[in-house]
């Protein structure tokens, strides 16, 4: 696919062009500028970006599958970016979120894209943000970002979302305790999934307490209960998402989050684009590996 075919295909919503575009941007191909420069900014502004995070196995993908079905019933075109960690040892990844969404595989208005974190120091926000923009520009709304809520990079990605749901389930124990601090703060909706399982009521009560505490501080955290595997509670969850989106758009929170995400992405891209030049400069000064590394870095930055 050459440059013209690719850009033309993107405009025409050709599935292959969309998929190629995401890879090229993710791989830092020179075509990335032309691709990202061709996107429909007003569609991107209008699209809802929905974050789905939570511990492994909580039911994020199953819930995403149900939400897809919900929006498809209203004929909305929908995109999913499912992010899984890369292996720290091999750099490879097993990307299995799609398994739960395969009933939509032949629906040309459902685009599911798996993405690995690639152990990036930075750049994940940039790559995921670009994928969101490409999907939104192709008419997808919402664009759902699924990510396991464990590390800092995941916390950063979730800041790309307009509305964030934290999916929890009973029986995951310590995982939930561990993530309380950070993720509970960024979550707009606490979803207690697997409401059919023992311990769901207790978990829901705990989450209600967290939500009350947040509301006392002026937040707007909501709690929803779902049985994703049976499609229960999905309509209520979607209503909650949409009510929050509306409230955020009207109250200025939406704009504030988008601006914050924008700055984050620009920073991430700047570091990404700077990396090759820095590596080159470091390599050039290679013969002289003396002195403090930080002072060396400052010296190199002064040359740029």
């Amino acid at each position, binding site marked *: *696919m050459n440059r013209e075919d690719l850009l033309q295909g993107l405009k025409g919503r050709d599935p292959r062009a969309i998929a190629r575009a995401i*890879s090229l941007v993710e791989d830092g191909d020179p075509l990335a500028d032309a691709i990202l420069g061709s996107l429909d900014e007003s569609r991107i502004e209008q699209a809802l970006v929905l974050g789905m995070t939570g511990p492994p196995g909580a039911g994020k993908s199953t819930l995403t599958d149900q939400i897809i079905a919900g929006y498809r019933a209203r004929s909305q075109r929908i995109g999913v970016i499912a992010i899984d960690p890369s292996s720290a040892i091999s750099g490879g990844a097993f*990307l299995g979120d799609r398994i739960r969404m395969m009933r939509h595989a*032949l629906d040309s208005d459902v*685009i599911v894209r798996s993405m690995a974190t690639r152990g990036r120091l930075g750049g994940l926000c940039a790559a995921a943000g670009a994928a969101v923009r490409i999907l939104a520009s192709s008419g997808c709304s919402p664009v759902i970002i699924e990510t396991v809520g464990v590390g800092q990079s995941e916390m950063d990605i979730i800041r790309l979302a307009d509305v964030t749901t934290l999916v929890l389930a009973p029986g995951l124990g310590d995982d939930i305790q561990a993530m309380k601090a950070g993720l509970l703060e960024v979550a707009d909706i606490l979803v207690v999934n697997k409401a059919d399982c023992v311990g769901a009521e207790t978990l829901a009560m705990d989450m209600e307490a967290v939500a009350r505490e947040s509301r006392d501080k002026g937040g707007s955290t909501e709690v929803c209960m779902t049985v994703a595997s049976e499609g229960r509670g999905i309509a209520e969850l979607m209503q909650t998402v949409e009510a929050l989106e509306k409230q955020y758009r009207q109250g200025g929170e939406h704009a504030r989050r988008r601006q914050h995400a924008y700055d984050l992405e620009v920073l991430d891209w700047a570091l990404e684009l700077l990396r090759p030049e820095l590596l080159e400069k470091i390599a050039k000064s290679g013969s002289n590996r003396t002195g403090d590394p930080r002072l060396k870095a400052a010296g190199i930055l002064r040359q740029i």
Partner: protein
Amino acid sequence: MAGRSRKYRVLIGKPGLDGHDRGAKILARALRDAGFEAVYTGIRRTADEIAAAAVQEDVSAVGLSSLSGAHLRLFPAVVEALKQRGAGDIPVLGGGVIPDEDLAALKQAGIVEVYTPGTPLAQVVEAFENACDRHQKGRSGK
């Protein structure tokens, strides 16, 4: 692997009705451990579902696994479905319980590599590596 500038993305599909995906998962994990990004579709997929997913995931190769004995129908169907979706350039590899006498027919139908339970995993991984290399070269040549 380290010398390669881009990550290879592959899709592992399980067409047909048999519900045992141990082999498919072992393959996907072996590929992960060799540095590939391996997307897995789960069991009981149609050829067209696998092709559609391969397009969306922009993979450089598709690996199939079949234990049901229906590989002579299922594997070529995936090759055909990819062509239908304008993705005939994506190479298809296949494995599972496959008798020697079927190998020629599968190759004839466009399956670039066939592996059987006796094939060492390292050899299968290498076949994927080679298929992806060729696919990548074909792309940059265009």
